[in-house]
Structure formats: structure tokens, C-alpha cells
């Protein structure tokens, strides 16, 4: 990622203030000294980059460096409200960076800058906040992005659930890159970059409501590196989308509807870990609708599918990639799942949440 962009700005001169409190109180959102301590110690100290160090109300970003990377700006935002804050394989901070980075990257953009809005419930342990922020920094570094501006609000106990994070991000799309679902054609193939449903299953498991003895970890990971590799291996890649809420079933439906084609998925080639499959069997969930935080579904022309698959598998974020289906002309707008048993069924969009069955 272009370090030249990050190198701009003025260095942080004054010694930083430190936060001594154990828990966040309303004072930490009141705009006074306590808030200053929190921001300088926890956020600026950790995110640590020249744009942030200016401590202004906005980050000022040089346009020329951005413009060198491409001819379109990609701009996105998302909010993260996961419960629990820490779960096997990740935490809300990692999620907040990954999610926004991935939303940029799947458009073919190189992500550069993020913002970070924190809504903190009065009473949150400062230690937990520090852990979250450290994890945001680690993830941002891994994805090659900088958190350049932010906002902090503290709300009364009960007005939020511990911690909500909003991140917005900008990235640059290289000239000539046009990934869009409307370019999908019959004959194209669908790929995913690994096992499905890990994040959704890990969260259900981490809530501990069902007393299951699983060790399912979230698949939370930035995909910008993998996507760069994919675009190099397959210049005619049609489109991709990260399969977050709603899972791959939802993404496949969005593709089919946007391109007026039929998508046929093969249950036997869709990678799902045994632990996730087992949990789904018990709870009556469908792994194809479970959320992922490090998985994408891509569509490529059949002729480039094999080299693309090999390139994906060679990348650490795509080791278990697989070709999982193909595009047909009809029935337009529908996703058909060829079940492992040999039957066909429609894989529709989900209504509301997946709820477990009883009998």
C-alpha cells in the first residue's frame, strides 16, 4: 500500500496526555479534560499517524497522491454493534476495520483512509476499550490503511450496549477497473475464498446461550491483499462481494437479480467446516445464510477460473478457495442449489433473521 500517502502531515509535537480512569464515565464524552485524555491516550496514541496527530476536526488529505492511484474514489461506511465485544477469532475493533476495508476492496479499490466513530456506554472498562483500539490498529496496519479522524460519544448506561463503532473509509479504484454485477454472463463461474459461516457460528457460540462445546473461530480478516492478487490473476473478473450478513446465499441472489441470470450452486462444492455444519444441524440454521467477515464470492469468466482459483489458493486469505457454481440464462433472477442429495431447490433471500427450529 502506498506509504507515500501516509507520510504527509505534521509530526505530533507536544507530549501526550494519559488516561488514568478504569471505567468510561459521562465526563469522557463531555468535551473537557477527561475527554482530551481519552482521545490523546487511547485513540491518537494507538492509531498513531500524522493526520490524526494534528487533532483537528477533520483530516486533510493530499489529493495528488490519491489521484495517482486511479480515477474513481470509493467511499463507504458501516456500523458495528456485535455482542459480545470479544469472540473467538476477533473482536468488535477488528470487525470494524475489516468490514469497511472489505467493502472498499470488493469494488476493486485500494483502501487508504478510515474514520472511526465510537459510541461508548457509560461504565465500559477502559481496559476493554484499549484492547479494542489496539486490535483496530493491528488490523488497519495489516490492511495498509490509516485511521485519520474520529469522533467519540459517551451515552448513559442502557442507551447503548457497551460499545458501538462506526467506520467510514475511502479508497481509490484504478483507472479502467469496472467490477459490476451487471457484467455477469451465462457461462461464468462463481468462486468463494474458503469455509462459510464461521463468523456467524462463532458469534452464536460465543454468546454461550446454547452451551455448546465448540471451538469455532470467526474468519474476520481484511481481503484487500487477496483481492489485489485476484485482479492480477483475472483481469476480466466480473464482480465480487463480501458475504457478510445474509451469507453467500444473499450475495448469490443479489448477483442473479442484478444481472437477470440464474445462478446454480453446488452444495457439495460449498466449503463448510464440520464444526459449523454440526452446529447448524443442531440449531436448524443454514450455513449458507450465516455471516462471514473474511469471505467473498466472486464471478469470473470460465476461461480464467482455473488460474484465478490457483492464485487465490496461493494467498493465505484464500487457501480453501473453491469453484462453487455457475451462471445460467434461466430462470432469470433466481438462485438454484443443487443439493448434495441430488435434488434441486431454490435458495431464496432470507426473511428476517434465521431462527432455529424445534422439531
Amino acid at each position, binding site marked *: 500500500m502506498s506509504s507515500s500517502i501516509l507520510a504527509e502531515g505534521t509530526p505530533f509535537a507536544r507530549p501526550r496526555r494519559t488516561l488514568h480512569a478504569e471505567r468510561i464515565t459521562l465526563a469522557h464524552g463531555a468535551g473537557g479534560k477527561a475527554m482530551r485524555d481519552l482521545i490523546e491516550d487511547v485513540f491518537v496514541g494507538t492509531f498513531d499517524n500524522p493526520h490524526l496527530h494534528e487533532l483537528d476536526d477533520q483530516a486533510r488529505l493530499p489529493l495528488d497522491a490519491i489521484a495517482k492511484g486511479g480515477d474513481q474514489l470509493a467511499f463507504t461506511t458501516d456500523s458495528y454493534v456485535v455482542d459480545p465485544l470479544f469472540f473467538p477469532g476477533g473482536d468488535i475493533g477488528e470487525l470494524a476495520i475489516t468490514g469497511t476495508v472489505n467493502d472498499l476492496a470488493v469494488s476493486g479499490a485500494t483502501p487508504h483512509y478510515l474514520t472511526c466513530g465510537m459510541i461508548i456506554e457509560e461504565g465500559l472498562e477502559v481496559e476493554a476499550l484499549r484492547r479494542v483500539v489496539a486490535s483496530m490498529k493491528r488490523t488497519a496496519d495489516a490492511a495498509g490503511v490509516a485511521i485519520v479522524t474520529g469522533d467519540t460519544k459517551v451515552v448513559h448506561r442502557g442507551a447503548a450496549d457497551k460499545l458501538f463503532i462506526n467506520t467510514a473509509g475511502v479508497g481509490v479504484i484504478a483507472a479502467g477497473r469496472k467490477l459490476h454485477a451487471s457484467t455477469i454472463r451465462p457461462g461464468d463461474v462463481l468462486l468463494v475464498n474458503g469455509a462459510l459461516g464461521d463468523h456467524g457460528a462463532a458469534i452464536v457460540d460465543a454468546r454461550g*446461550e*446454547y452451551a455448546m462445546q465448540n471451538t469455532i473461530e470467526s474468519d474476520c480478516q481484511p481481503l484487500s491483499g487477496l483481492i489485489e492478487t485476484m485482479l492480477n490473476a483475472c483481469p476480466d473478473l466480473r464482480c465480487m462481494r463480501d458475504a457478510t450478513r445474509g451469507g453467500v446465499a444473499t450475495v448469490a441472489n443479489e448477483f442473479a437479480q442484478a444481472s437477470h441470470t440464474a445462478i446454480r450452486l453446488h452444495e457439495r462444492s460449498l466449503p463448510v467446516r*464440520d*464444526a459449523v*455444519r*454440526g452446529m447448524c*444441524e443442531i*440449531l*436448524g440454521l443454514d450455513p449458507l445464510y450465516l455471516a462471514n467477515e473474511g469471505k467473498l464470492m466472486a464471478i469470473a469468466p470460465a476461461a480464467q477460473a482455473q488460474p484465478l482459483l490457483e492464485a487465490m489458493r496461493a494467498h493465505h486469505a484464500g487457501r480453501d478457495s473453491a469453484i462453487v457454481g455457475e451462471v445460467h440464462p434461466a*430462470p432469470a433472477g*433466481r438462485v438454484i*442449489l*443443487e*443439493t*448434495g*442429495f*441430488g*435434488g*434441486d*431447490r*431454490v435458495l*431464496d433471500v432470507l*426473511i*428476517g433473521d434465521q*431462527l*432455529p*427450529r*424445534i*422439531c
Partner: protein
Amino acid sequence: MKFVDEFRDPDAAKAVLRAIDALAPNFADRPEGPLQLMEFCGGHTHTIFRYGIEPMLPDWIELVHGPGCPVCVLPMGRVDDCVALAERPNVIFTTFGDAIRVPGSRKSLLQAKAEGADVRMVYSPLDALELARRHPEREVVFFALGFETTMPSTALTVLQAAQEGVENFSLFCNHITTVPTIKAILDSPDMRLDGFLAPGHVCMVVGERPFDFVAERYGKPLVITGFEPLDILQSIWMAVEQLADRRCAVENQYARVVAAHGNPPGLEAIAKVFELRAFFEWRGLGSIDHSGVGMRDAYARFDAEHKFTVPNLRIADPKSCQCGEVLKGSIRPWECKVFGTACTPQTPLGALMVSSEGACAAYHNFGDLQALLARRETQEAVSS
């Protein structure tokens, strides 16, 4: 976790389908149309749709999806009672997930929760009992529903609560029984079913014998069936073979799990805690004698209907609903006049659209909606 992959093997499925095909000549020109087999259990309905079994079958066999989803057949008035209980200030109302979205006449449990009622989803009645232990100052009500399958676990939970003297725990009992319901379907004048696939897990509790009357008195084959897709295909084959041989018997395809005599300790717990109600109201089917169970007087202190007052009003199903006809197999789900238009999973008018196990919801979610609606239109055009 170990999977029963041998029961999901597509090659084995093809072999069974070939065996079924070989029986086709026996039913070549049936004036009554395709053979109709009813799977009675929501779990079976779910497997049939999830694995795409229906389109694999030859067109001379039709599956009819019976009333086997306890959520689907719950009358609206009972949902209102649930909401009333859940809205009592000190109550934690616990329920299985599927019941949470079922519409009552005013609102569902999900809406009540959004308005502030303490409604929690649990996976077993024991989880509800645990909540009661942890919150001695609150009243924990468990919404008990389901067939004989889930009865032993609720009965055992009540026995445990009694033994420990947990006084802030109670059941809102809506358990129902299979036998009178099958009887009611068989007695209905527009019944044209040829055979039944019976729920394996119910039989795991009650054994094989309670279903003998289907073969003996009504002359219909019945096959006790497991829940894997191959179980279902094989049971269809067994039932069709009986019909081809002009036999009718109760056969047990699920012998690897179902013992002929059922589960005596489970039955004992049920008998201790529950007794048959004189009648119970079903959505779509009306009142059926002795089809529901309530709690015995000895356990009245664990009976939410006894402990608290519930409104207990009867709310008629909307007029446009044809759920009853679908449940009995006289029309197919997509033939209902409001299927996919006024009645959808987001806006369920009838019971069968409510739970994911309901036949209408299954057709809606797993079938090709546009094609089904087009078929209904053609049929309507022809018949008018």
C-alpha cells in the same frame, strides 16, 4: 460431530428412485390421479424441501405435507395468551425460536419483546428452569409446545422443578398428540390420501403400536420414517411397494432408532405430569377431541394457566385462509387463493406460512414462486 453422510448419498438416492420407478406400471392409469402420501411431521417437510426431494420423484407420486408443525397449528388465541403472559411485569417468558414470530391477533411475541416484554429464546425447557433458578425474584414461564417428541423433556423438567422446589417456574402447556389428529384427517370427507409417513421421533417415544389403527381400521399403509433424505426416499418406496402389493401395514423404516415399544421412562414421565384435554383447538383444522394435553392437578403450581389468568379467547382464522384444505391434502399449498400474494412469510395470513416447517412457507422459500403462481393462474383460468 459425526455426520450420517451415507443417508445423504446421491448414488443411493438414484438406486431408490430406480426401485420406485420400477413400480410405476402398478399405478399406470389410476382414475384418481397421482398417489398421495402424507408426511405428517414438520421435520420431514423440512428435509423434503431442504434436499429438494419432491422434484426428484416421478409425477405419479405426490407428497402432501400434513399438520406436523406444532407452531403452524397453534391457534391465534393461544399466541395472544402467550403475549399476555409475556407482558406481565414480573415474567420472563421463554420460548423456542420458531414460535417467536407467529402472529397473534394483535401482535407476535417478537413485537411484544420489542415493546419491552422480557421474551427469551431457549433451546430446551431445562434452560428455562435454569433461568428460574438464577432469577428467584422473577416468574419464568416456559412456552411448551410440540408433539410427543418434546413432551418427555418438558415433563422431566417439571418433575425436576418439583423435586427441587423451584416455585417460580411454570409451563404454558400447548403440547399436542399425533394419533387423534391423524384420525381426524382420515375421517374428513374430502380425504384422498393413499398412505402415511409417520414421524420417527414421535414413535421413538410412543413406539409402533399406536399407529396400527391406520392400517387396520382405515386400510392405509404407514411407514415410520427417519429424518435424513434417504430415510424419506426409502420410506416412500416402502409405502408405494405396499400399495403396489395391495397390502397395508405399519412398517418401521427407522428401526435403527425406533424400538417397537417406544421409550417407557419417557412415557412414564408424560403420564405423571400430563393428561389429555377434552379437546384442543388447531389452526386450520378446528377443534379436535383429545388432541391436546394439559397438566395434572398434582402439578397445577407449575401450570401457567392455573397460576396466572390468561385471556383464553377463541380467535377465528381469517376467512381467506385455506390452511385446513392444504393440511388435509385436498389442495396443494400454492393452489390456495392467497398463496404468495396476500399470504407470504413476511405477512403470514395462515398458519402454514408462519414457521419454516409449514408447507406453504416451504413452497414459498424453497420452490419457484413465479412458476407456482403461473400454474395457479392457469388452473384458475381452466376451472372458471
